[in-house]
């Protein structure tokens, strides 16, 4: 029961946070300096280039290639892991979703390695200065989440039906018993912590990266 209460609290917090952020963004002045509006590539091309910048993390690639490798692998595997997790949440996913689940399976293996690799690359520069406490916390959290996920997948397999019933039950207010596994509870609760601490760059960085391209192209 307590897990379910925690889940609802987290969801309410997330909802309020989301609404407040959207409110702040809508309220903010949308005026921008004229130079960004007028100059640069023709619209379709700039959108395409910016899109490539976003999905391949070009900016990071330019500056720190070893770190880029870890970060890109982490983000892309994380994305597929999340997409694969949707099968616990949604009913009626198309049949081709099984391919995504399959990629997600590999993503789940890559994820902890990429996170450890990121820590090593950062530490090799200067551990104390270049790893922010917030970032370290997040990386450790993700490592724990992914390791517990892998444990359930390969060592102590969970009954998918139970998990799905439990998770969908929360959203449909048709509460179902918590699957009987400590590792699952651990994984699930840490997942909730991750949702609370989900860095806002996940939403906004694609926009700012795209914007940066326009700035780079600016010449007098």
């Amino acid at each position, binding site marked *: 029961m307590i897990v379910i209460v925690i889940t609802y609290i987290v969801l309410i*917090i997330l909802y*309020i*946070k989301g609404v*407040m*952020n959207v409110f*702040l*963004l809508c*309220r*903010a*002045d*949308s*005026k*921008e*300096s*004229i*130079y960004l509006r*007028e100059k640069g590539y023709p619209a379709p091309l700039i959108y395409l280039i910016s899109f490539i910048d976003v999905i391949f*993390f070009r*900016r*990071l690639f330019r*500056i*720190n290639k070893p*770190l880029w490798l870890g*970060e890109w692998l982490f983000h892309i595997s994380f994305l597929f892991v999340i997409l694969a997790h949707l099968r616990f949440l949604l009913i009626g996913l198309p049949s081709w979703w099984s391919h995504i689940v399959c990629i997600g399976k590999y993503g789940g293996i890559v994820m902890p390695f990429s996170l450890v690799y990121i820590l090593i690359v950062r530490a090799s*520069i200067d551990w104390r*200065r*270049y*790893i*922010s406490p*917030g*970032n370290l916390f997040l990386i450790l959290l993700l490592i724990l989440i992914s390791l517990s996920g892998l444990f359930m997948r390969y060592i102590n397999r969970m009954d998918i039906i139970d998990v799905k019933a439990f998770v969908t039950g929360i959203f449909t207010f048709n509460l179902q018993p918590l699957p009987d596994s400590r590792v699952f509870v651990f994984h699930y609760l840490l997942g909730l912590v991750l949702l609370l601490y989900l*860095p*806002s*760059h996940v*939403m*906004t*960085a694609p*926009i*700012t*990266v*795209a*914007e*940066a*391209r326009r*700035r*780079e192209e*600016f*010449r*007098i």
Partner: protein
Amino acid sequence: MKRTFTEGLGRKELAEIKACTQCRECLRYCPVQEVTGRVEISPSEKIRIYRDFIERTESLRALITGRDIPEQLLKDFTRAVFECTTCGVCGEVCPAGIDTQRLWPLLRREMVKRGLGPVGGQAEMPEVIRNTGNPYNQPPSERYRPWFPDETEIAEKAEVAYYVGCTGAYQAQPMVRGDVLILKAIGIEFTMLKEEEEVCCGFPLFITGQHELLEGLVKRLVDAYKNKGVKELVCSCPCCVNMMAKDWPFYYGKELPFKIVHVTQYALKAIKTGKLRIDHGLEERLIYHDPCYLSRGVGVIKEPRDVLRSIPGVELIEFDRWGRLSRCCGAGGAARKVFHDNAVAIARLSIDEACHRGADRLVLSCPACYEKVNDAMKDYPKKVRIVDIMELLSEIIYGQNA
């Protein structure tokens, strides 16, 4: 109703503050970090703290814990955001693409509105500019007279105008003298505003977050050039050029009726079309320093190098970080007087590198760099001869007694 921390921000800036991943890539390039090593004034910390201000005042947390922020935290943040040189290299290397060169001035403005900034003598700037037209409290009558080359015609009206800029006029006179000599050598008819009409471009006010006078200054300048029929406004100061190209249209309310051109762009065009001939050579190893607001600000990177390469005999070498990644000379952000020790220490990094690379001369193209690098060489064992790019060109074209 209390002022909020998001009030003075646009959507872009708000998204940027939320976009910082705290990856700290920026720390490896920040010149202030290089000389102070204080993480608490680093770009990532500034963004994190500002984000925290927003969270503490305009989020769920604010509803639960109250909206107060300790005074000391606000003061420390203000100092950190003013200690920056606004060089913008942090934004250049930022994987999230945060436009820090513009973000810091806006955060500074917020602290000014809260009565916490600006710092030191910066606070007197608006009053001084209102009285004298320049931030150095110098008489307008001395703006051109001490350095302006003899027998140089200034047209009443012309398609090309030259804007000197306050720092060049009062603190780096060989540089602006070089500009005028080159315009003269090109043989172009150009106009200038009268000494008391050529007021500050607004950059120091923009950068220190004191934006009240800006609209007035910009409209006054733009209209004055418009009345002279100007089509191209030539200027050598990167800060002015940046302000004109990016912010003047904003404060003017529409596109400018003329183009902004950096003097190296103008000179290069003249060299290419044969209007400016460089007959004498120079057997020297030159190292060129990119000013932050010229390279990262307006993308003028190739032109100064092409100008230098067009001088026969010149060997052009580069700093380790050049172009968009160049290191600040220390003078930026209107912080060079208030945080003098930082500025000198940063400038000395470039002096060291220029010496290490065996450069005969360090070529600059910004009056603030010129002043600061000169200053940093006082009482410093390492020395490198410095010269402004147009000063050098005029020396070659007119001979040593230019």
